[in-house]
C-alpha cells in the first residue's frame, strides 16, 4: 500500500504540494488528472524519493520513504516509474536496456537477466526487437521499452507520468494497450494522464489536482461523470472538448 499523509512540498518560495492525502491499495489503479503545473509530477517524484518533501509522510508498504534510515535505492526497486520522455539508454540494445538493472542492481546472472528481459519485452509486444538499438524505434516502441525496463525489476507498484503526452497521436493507442495489459495482470498503478477516457476505463479512483491540492477524488463515475467542484467541471470541459 502507498500511503500519503498531508504532504507539503516547496521549490524555494513556491509551494507546489499543499497537503496531499492519498491511499493506493494493492491491485488498485489511481489516475491523477489536472492542469499543467498543479503538482502531479512532483507528487510522483516524492513517492519515488527523487524529490524530498517538506512536511508530511509517505509510506510504501509501511516503509517511510523520506526517513533518513531508509535505503532509497532499495526502495526504488519496489516502484517502477515511466516518464513522459522515454529516456532509452542509447548505448545499449533493447534487450540490454531491460537486462541492465536486474544485472547490476539485483546482481542476477547474465542468463537470468536476459531471460527476464526477453519475457518483459515480449509482454509489451517488442519480442522481435531484442538486438535493435532503441534510437531506431518509434516513440511508442521506446515508451513500451521503458515500461518493460521498469517491469524487469519486478516492482510492486508502477508510477506513470503522462507517458503518452510526448507521443504522436497514432502511437498513443499501443502504449495505452500495454497499460491495459498491466491492469489485467493486477499491477498496482498510479497514472498521471490527460487521457480522460482511458482513466475512466481503467481506474478504481481518480484524483483531480488543482494548484497543489486534491480538489476532488472518487470513482470515475463521481469525478468524471458527476464532478461537484466548479474547477473540476471547467478542467474536464476544457480537456474533453
Amino acid at each position, binding site marked *: 500500500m502507498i500511503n500519503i499523509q498531508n504532504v507539503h512540498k516547496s521549490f524555494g518560495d513556491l509551494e507546489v504540494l499543499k497537503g496531499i492525502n492519498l491511499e493506493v491499495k494493492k491491485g488498485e489503479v489511481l489516475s491523477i488528472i489536472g492542469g499543467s503545473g498543479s503538482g502531479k509530477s512532483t507528487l510522483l517524484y516524492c513517492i519515488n524519493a527523487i524529490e524530498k518533501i517538506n512536511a508530511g509522510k509517505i509510506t510504501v508498504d509501511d516503509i517511510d520513504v523520506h526517513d533518513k534510515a531508509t535505503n532509497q535505492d*532499495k526502495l*526504488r*526497486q519496489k516502484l517502477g516509474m515511466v516518464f513522459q520522455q522515454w*529516456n532509452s*539508454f*542509447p*548505448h545499449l540494445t533493447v534487450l540490454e536496456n531491460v537486462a541492465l*538493472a536486474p544485472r547490476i*542492481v*539485483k546482481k542476477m546472472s547474465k542468463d537470468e537477466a536476459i531471460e527476464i528481459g526477453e519475457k518483459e519485452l515480449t509482454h509489451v509486444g517488442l519480442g522481435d526487437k531484442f538486438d535493435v538499438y532503441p534510437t531506431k524505434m518509434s516513440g511508442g516502441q521506446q515508451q513500451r521499452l521503458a515500461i518493460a525496463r521498469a517491469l524487469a525489476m519486478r516492482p510492486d507498484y508502477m508510477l506513470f507520468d503522462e507517458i503518452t503526452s510526448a507521443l504522436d497521436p497514432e502511437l498513443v493507442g499501443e502504449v495505452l494497450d500495454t497499460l491495459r495489459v498491466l491492469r489485467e495482470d493486477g499491477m498496482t498503478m498510479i497514472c498521471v494522464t490527460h487521457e480522460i477516457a482511458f482513466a475512466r476505463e481503467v481506474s478504481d479512483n481518480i484524483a483531480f489536482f488543482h494548484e497543489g491540492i486534491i480538489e476532488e477524488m472518487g470513482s470515475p463515475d463521481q469525478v468524471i461523470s458527476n464532478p461537484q467542484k466548479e474547477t473540476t467541471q471547467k478542467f474536464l470541459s476544457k480537456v474533453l472538448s
Partner: protein
Amino acid sequence: MGSLFTPLSWNDSGLILAGIWNTIVISVVAIVIGTILGLIIGFIRSESNKTVNLILSSLLDILRSVPLIIQLILFSTFVGAWGYPLEPFVAGSIILSLYTMAFMSEVFRSAFESVHSSMLTASRSLGLSYWQTVFYIRLPIGIRTVFPSWLGVALSVIKDSALVSVIGYMELLRTSDQLISRTQQPLEILLGVGLFYFLISYPLSLYGKHVERKMAL
C-alpha cells in the same frame, strides 16, 4: 684533412628509431595520464557549483594559456634549483600530462554534461545508485559524443611533445637536431621528421572525422 661533417647514413637509423620511440612513449604517457586526470577533473567540474568551478577553471586556464615550452623550462629549472633534479623524461611527462589534463578536462566535462538529467533520473528510478548511474549510463553515453574532440587533443599532444626537447629529452626532434649539426643536411632530416608526424596524425584525424560523420547521422 677530412670533413668535419659526416653525411647521413644507415648507421643513423638506430638513433632515429630511438627518437621516434621516445616521442611515442612520452606522448602515450601524457595522453593516458592526461585522460585519466581529465576524466576525474571533468567529472568534478560537471558536478560542482559555480565557486568550485571558478577556482578549477582558473587553475586550468593557467595550464592552458602559458605556452608549454615556458612551463617545461620553468618546471625543470625550479625543481632542479630546489635540489630535486628530474630526468628530462620525468619532468617532461609531468608537465605534458598536466597540460593534456587541462584540455581533456574540458572534453570530459562536456561529455558528462551532454547526458540529460532526465536520463539520470530514469536510471535512478530503476534502483541504480549514484555511482552505478555514473559508470553504466553517464560515462558511456557521454563519451560517445566526445570521441572526435578527445582524438583532436591527443593528436595535438603528439605534436606538442616535440617541445620536451628543450629540457633535454631525446625525442625525435632533438635527435634530428643533433643529426643536423653533424650532417648539415637539415632539409632531408626535417622533411623526414615532418613526414613522421604527418603519417601519425593524418590517418587518425581522418578516422576522427569519419566517426564524427557517422555520429551525425
